[in-house]
């Protein structure tokens, strides 16, 4: 029972990670790709850690620490990548209808 539950949670995590990969591949520009990647890897990682903790209860504390660490650093690195891409002048997808950041930076010059 316990191993079945663990396997189900681990598989759910793997499915979200796979969807994240698909998202990075299918999305049209840098920022939409970062979005698909960050959300999916964070939930996928948490579910993988939870599944591993159900299968191996002795590892729970370490797995929780790893999950916490990644929950803090995952969105942080995505934000830095997104900012770097914007500062480097990467072109957003043509469907992007408004860019408040570019407008405000233009106004300051």
């Amino acid at each position: 029972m316990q191993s079945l539950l663990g396997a189900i949670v681990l598989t759910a995590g793997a499915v979200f990670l796979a969807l994240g990969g698909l998202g990075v591949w299918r999305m049209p520009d840098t920022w939409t790709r970062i979005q698909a990647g960050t959300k999916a890897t964070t939930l996928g990682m948490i579910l993988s850690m939870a599944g591993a903790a159900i299968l191996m209860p002795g590892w729970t504390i370490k797995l929780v620490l790893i999950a916490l660490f990644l929950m803090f650093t995952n969105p942080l690195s995505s934000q830095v990548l997104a900012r770097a891409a914007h500062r480097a002048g990467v072109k957003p997808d043509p469907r992007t209808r408004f860019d408040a950041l570019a407008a405000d930076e233009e106004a300051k010059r």
Partner: protein
Amino acid sequence: MSDRLAPAKLFATTFLFWILLNGSLAPDVAVVGLIVAAAITYFLPNGLSFLSGYKAKPLATLGYIAFFFKELIKANLSMAHLVLMPTIAVKPAFVKVRTKLTHPVGRLLLANSITLTPGTLSVEIEGEHIYVHWVVAETTDPEAATRKIVAGFEKYLEVIYG
């Protein structure tokens, strides 16, 4: 930050983290941990820890955690829907939102939370404004976007880090 306990909090969190990672309180492990935690506290006296500025508000903390996970799961389901559709139906925009939070840890948590919630990604933070990339933008008006993106988290973070 005029928090006189800040170095003690930094020391406590780094040392606790080390002990939990090792899973033991053996003397050699504890001594190495004490030395490293002391060195980190000495060289980075203004370093932030989870506890800097944290006010013990258990209800708001639980509310924030519950809201965060609810939003994280919603974000993944909507992203899965977007990604699995035959045509990628995005309508992105960079919008500006405003935050009332002043404490750095509270702002960090807010920016991170925005990144992990449905369709939004923090790009730049400047003064009281956060610039957010929105995959399916519903509005480009700063006030409406603030209500939609920021208000849910700010309600809890205001209490915890206000």
